[in-house]
């Protein structure tokens, strides 16, 4: 964790965030979390745990039933256009436009992100940084693998150069090599001072790079551990037990203590 982050203004904050859908399903229940500059916050949880709902509220794709989501201090649902200037997003399965080349896609989404000051060299640098081969720069996206498309997605996020980044299961479906490269890149962005909120199923990578790990179950943040609190903890076991629903915060602490024995 970047130590300077401790006293800084949160880049992303969920304050008592709840979401109840029209069919009565409670997707989020009083979620509180903070992501500061130079931090990676990973949300772990099964399907329907509320991870993507949280990200969707931050992006104003859905309105919270109660509570607030802030990006760089701006309410993401009251001033969404202003808030979105400060956040980049990489989805689970970056598709982009299949008839566009990587360059054309990067150019469009970067301009959409409000950056029209880049030239081709800047795009090439970003694509090179994410590990895309130069021979693919001018190839159409329809010929790209998922890993290559994901690299383009992260390049777009890098070029937007926003302080906050939202990642929705970014390593899902990637091969181990691509997953590793992606994790390394996320770490670099964190080191540059970006605040990253990531939803993932991948407990190993979450433990590897996260400064905070929160486990969500049925919309409730059942536990929240910092990097130091995770040292020596078998996160996978912890995760499985929380998902099984037979562990509460007190038994989890006990388990954590026992792990240290």
């Amino acid at each position, binding site marked *: 964790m970047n130590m300077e982050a401790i006293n800084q203004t949160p880049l992303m904050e969920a304050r008592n965030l709840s979401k109840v859908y029209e069919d009565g399903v409670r997707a989020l229940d009083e979620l509180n979390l903070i992501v500061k500059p130079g931090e990676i916050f990973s949300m772990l949880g099964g399907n329907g745990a509320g991870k993507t709902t949280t990200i969707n509220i931050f992006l104003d*794709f*859905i309105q919270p039933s109660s509570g607030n989501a802030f990006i760089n201090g701006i309410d993401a649902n009251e001033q969404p*256009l202003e808030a*979105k*200037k400060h956040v980049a*997003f990489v989805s689970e399965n*970056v598709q982009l*436009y299949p008839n*566009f080349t990587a360059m054309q896609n990067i150019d469009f*989404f970067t301009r959409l992100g409000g950056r029209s000051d880049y030239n081709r060299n800047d795009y090439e640098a970003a694509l090179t940084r994410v590990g895309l081969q130069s021979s693919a720069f001018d190839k159409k996206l329809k010929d790209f693998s998922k890993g290559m498309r994901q690299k383009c997605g992260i390049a777009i996020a890098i070029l937007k150069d926003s302080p906050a980044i939202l990642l929705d299961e970014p390593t899902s479906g990637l091969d181990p090599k691509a997953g590793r490269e992606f994790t390394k890149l996320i770490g670099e962005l964190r080191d540059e001072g970006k605040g990253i909120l990531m939803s993932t199923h991948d407990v190993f990578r979450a433990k590897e790079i996260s400064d905070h790990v929160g486990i969500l179950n049925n919309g409730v943040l059942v536990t929240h551990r910092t990097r130091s609190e995770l040292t020596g903890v078998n996160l996978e076991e912890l995760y499985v037990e929380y998902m099984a629903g037979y562990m509460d915060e007190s038994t989890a602490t006990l388990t954590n203590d026992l792990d240290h024995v």
Partner: protein
Amino acid sequence: MLSLFIQKELKNIIQSPKFTATFVVCTILILTSVFIGIKEYQNSVIQYEANRQIVQEDARQATGWNNVRNISHRTPTPMQIFVSGLHFDVGRLSRISTFDDVKLTRSPYSDEPIFAIFRFIDFAFIVQIVLSLFAILFTYDAINGERESGTLKLAFANSVSRIDYLMGKFIGIWAGLVIPLLIPVLLGLLLVMVFKIELTPDDWASISSLIGLSVLYITFFIGLGLLVSSLTRNSALSFLLLLVIWISSVMIIPRAGVIAAGQIVPIESVAQLEAKQAAFQKARWDEWSEQSSERWRERSAQMEGMTDEERQEFRDNKEWEWLEEDDADRKQVQQDITDNNRRLLEDTMNKKKEQERIAFSFARVSPASSFRLAAMTLAGTDINLKNRYEESMREYRDEFSSFIQKKQAESGNRGGFRISIVNGNVSMDTGRENSAIDTSEIPQYTAPVVTANASLGSSIFDFGMLGIFIILTFGGTFVSFLKYDMR
């Protein structure tokens, strides 16, 4: 931001295989249809000129005013190249005669029925069927497709206005579809000029209106595609829905309108009408025959008690008077028949107008009908083509009949003749000498002219209907998209 979306959309369309397919298909279809239309028009002009010369030659060879044969022809119009409308179905000519009603016969398709099997595909058909389908193909996944692929979420993760996004999408798709339409149309017009087809300023104005109408029609289908795409989450579903709407709008509703009107206002068939006319005609001539016999009996009665010489003298003195009296009666009968025919025709025409009104009111629920009706009106090949020509030919027939009667009166021959048997020698007196007549004075038929302003005025309702459909679809799309779930 708006220009960025427009550029993206246009680029995305132009780089897609469906744009290439649309452009190639439109170019081939439009150029082929214009080329065939030009050839057909040129043939029509040649046939028209040849027929006119034959009629003039016939008139020149007539040996008396009572046997001048006259036929009027429907004038070909260059607009039939673009919108054939009813051109191939309406007769090309009508006999002009005092004794017969005007009736356009020998339509191009009745002369050459093989071409009616696979009918001529004109520009209006291409726009109505092919381009509207392409418009659906371009838009069915415009919004829900981007949701499915995740690009919608990625775009709206930025500081993007929904209105800018939607406007950019609409303008981009619109330009992407209008380009494959306008380029072949311009090439088609070039082809028209290469073949030296004379277009009047009115024709140019009508062509411009037709292009504007086509763009409006395509705009509606773009709006419809965007609306359905913004109302559904799944592009396969929106395609299916659009296909159903397209089939209903283009294929079913226009025909259903006509069928419903036919049930609501039944009209006698031409055969029934002609049977009624023939029955009256027979009854009237039978009546005349009886009256004529009675008159001759009275005339004979006047001669009773006379010697043969006195009878002969009486007959000689009265013969022309009696002939004129009979002729006047015959003319009265003819006039009664003509009046009755006109009355029956007018009654049928009024019913037809009512039927058309109901059919078109119902059919106009579909923009395809509005487009078709307006396109035909602009081209002058509309539903009124037959009536317009027959009305003007009837006026011409009256003028022509008056002229012939005047000439017959001047020449002392009204078409009657006298057969005399004197001392066993039979002679026929037609009342004039057999000699050529000066046909240059015969009034010439002038085809009815519909100006571009008049045709635009007649089609303004359909333009308005298309405008309303466009406003409804775009209004609906905006409302729907403002609430669209981006996830």
